[in-house]
């Protein structure tokens, strides 16, 4: 059966340290000041009754990726395991995908093409996990195949309360946030 890669992010454990950003930056040699991942900190309520959510975010590698549909050259495409990639050789930097992405996950690389999270496909193909998953000091990031019911990610989604972000965009995102 084909794989469907997904990332499950346990917001109850995330301390917002940005180690995922550091690991992604060095692993993928992302040109500064750009990063493929970002952190969201939300504090709600009023002193002293407060609630905080911290989320590590990146490309959602959607099942219905709008960035792929709008790409005029076919650079944005769905690769193996449902991973959404940009082929820099085909990308003209027109930014249609940037406009189409509801998550603001993409940026123009200084060399002229659009860049974003690849789920570290070069590592997955070697049987490793994405760099951010392997570095997380709290182990709040989980990665695996949702088509395999025995995978860690499948089990987590069965046993825990989770949310997708902006589900109303209809993109079927593959980042799952545990609460």
């Amino acid at each position, binding site marked *: 059966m084909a794989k469907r890669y997904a990332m499950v992010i346990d917001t*109850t*454990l995330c*301390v*917002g*340290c*940005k*180690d995922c*950003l*550091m*690991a992604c*930056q*060095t*692993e*993928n*040699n*992302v*040109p*500064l*000041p750009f*990063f493929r991942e970002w952190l969201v900190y939300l*504090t709600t*309520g*009023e*002193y*002293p009754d*407060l*609630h*905080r959510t*911290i989320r590590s975010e990146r490309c959602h590698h959607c099942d219905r990726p709008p960035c792929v549909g709008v790409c005029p050259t076919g650079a944005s495409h769905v690769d193996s395991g449902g991973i959404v*990639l*940009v*082929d*820099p*050789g085909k990308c003209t930097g027109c930014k249609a995908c940037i406009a189409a992405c509801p998550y603001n996950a993409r940026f123009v*690389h*200084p*060399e002229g*093409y659009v*860049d974003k999270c*690849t789920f*570290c*496909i*070069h*590592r997955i*193909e*070697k049987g490793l996990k994405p*760099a951010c998953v*392997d*570095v*997380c*000091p*709290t*182990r*709040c990031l989980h990665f695996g195949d949702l088509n395999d019911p025995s995978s860690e990610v499948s089990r987590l989604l069965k046993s825990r309360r989770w949310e997708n972000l902006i589900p109303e965009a209809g993109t079927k995102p593959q980042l799952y946030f545990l609460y």
Partner: protein
Amino acid sequence: MKKITRREFIKISSIGTAGLSFGFGLSDCDMSWNVFGGGSKLDPRFGYGVDAKVVPTSCQICYWGCGVHAHVVDGKIWKLTGNPDDPLCAGRLCPRGTAGIGMIYDPDRLKTPLKRVTGKKGQDFVSVSWEEALGDAAGRLSEISDKYGSESIAVITHGKPGHFFEHLVRAAGSPNYSFPSFSLCRGARDVAYYLTYGKELGSPEPTDMENSRVLVLLGYHLGENMHTTQVREFARFLERANEGKAKLVVVDPRFSVAAGKAWKWLPIRPNTDMAFLLALINVILNERPDGRALYDEKYVNDYTAGLEGLKETVASYTPEWAYPICGISPEDIREVAYELGRNNPNVLVHPGRFSSWDGNNVQRIRANAILNALLGVWGRRGGFFVADKPYIPKYPVPSYPVSEIGQCDKGEYPIGPIPSVKNIVRSILTEKPYPIKALIVCGANILECIPQKEETIKALDKLDFFLAVDVLPVEQTGYADIVLPDCTYLERMDEISVKNFKQNFVTVNQPVVEPMYDSRPAWWIAREIGRRMGLDEYFEWKDIEEYNNIRLGGAGLSLTELKKTGIIPLGTGPIYLEDGKNLEFSTPSGKIELSSSTLSSFGQYPVPVFTGEPERPKQGYFHLSFGRSPLQSFSRTQNNRISLAVEGGDKFWINVDAARNIGVIDGRKYKLMDAEGKESPFTAEAKVTWGIRPDTIYFTHGFGHEDKRLKVAFGRGVSDSKLITEIKTDPIMGATGLRGGFVKVVV
């Protein structure tokens, strides 16, 4: 004598650096910097993995010493990952360690030895040979030692590189060696635990958070403070808390990351933790909500001494008494005490690390230590584990000459194993009890860590000779007579580290790549100066490898093996009482001292007492609080282009109501003003939030760098060392309290 104004030289000391460019926005800075030029290959499957050579080493950014795998491609370090065999990080470095390549490849690094010279145009630095720099440094140090006595040479160090300078100064006969980590950080905590349990907690501390059922953090912001081991255990604790098996209590004026995950966040009034702790002790000793004692009666009987004295002293410290002082309601105090009592001994009131808060630190941490003793947590799962220290012999050197007059603050504190760094500064300025005329600083940034920065600058001005050994041109180097460029931890070997944790082990850092520029390892610099001062007998080793080999050989180990794996596990034995660990206490009574006979003999309170309410801020002022960012280590990582790109560190937290009252607007930049009315040189951005008490302002420690040679760190944020004008000193061991400052926003 003409007054030396070294301050000017910072502006012109730009040897080897092309035109100074600096700015506040990322786009103005040199932020396009990348080790491999950032994406020179187009394939998204791009990765260096295939060709990378992996060198096991040890991280020396925060000196916790996690195991590292350095991945090297074409002679350059591609990335740093955690060594999976390392008991501390378990294969996962913290963000500072992961971003460590930003330190070695920092283009602003010190590149050659520099020497201050006086020419027609005034003073300036010139680049000199190592031979000249070392000869000059040794000559100046010997001269000062001969003229004023060996005590007139002092050293302030931190971490592995500094160790050899401590050795140098002690070999020269001076007792004036000190570490900011003692008197400005965890020294008070370690003294308090030593007095109570006969053992200092040290680093990594033997906390067993992953097994705790109730964890109380007092001003300790785990998750922002990123020691990997602690954060990993904290995360395992949180997992159990999610399952309803554990409870987290966070006592902090600020809604920290940890507070955001807590069962109870108690925004305590700053510097009143003693009242809160005494009330907890009172409840735990006196109340029996379920018809039985909240403290571990058998444990207290078997292992502690001084219960009666304690009971008597804390009798009046009821929750109702504490409430108006600390602002935490009697209901909350009781609820926390009951949870601790019902779940003892698998609970922990965390001792924290940074403990130099006010003028009563040892006693406050004593209250913490006593509370833990009553709950029976020493040697228990979820409390403190007790692991015997592994033994690897020291390198054999002749004993150090003993100074007859002693350290510069001798006799001022009953427990003062080393002088406080603040007192070294004082003795330089006052020449009392004797002059300190020469200073060496290595591995520490004394202008950023010692409060009352202007005074430290005056002291540097007054010195006859100041030697700065550093990786980066931090501000203090601008005041030095000789500046020597140290290698980073990725280019040098240091002395082995013998680590005492749940699994004991030994580790070492080794050169991953050749030293860049004309930098040399600190051990070599110290040895070369020592030899030139005629201290050859203290520096007989050929190199650091021989030094380490002799140490390891003494325990039947070899450096060759250690270099291959980066980690060698050492025997540990049982670490919990229930697994057969025998509890012994090196205190005068041989027991855990609830009432300390040692303190009594020094004329100090044997049991902690409440000595008075802290000062409240004047109209318009706030308590100054500061803490850690997970991306920064002390004041030594702010110029790292990778971490700085995601966090500028230039925000201060202020409560929504307080901001509204004084007209501070979220996202705008403001200067802060110290208690004496002096404004900070730079601005910080207001983060207007409900997540802090209305009487407190908080920002990240280590920012506000004033040296333009740090091209990306310069001018960002505000510095606590500059804004703290009033300090209180601990009467027992001389810790310098850093939480007593007040600030105002310049609107």
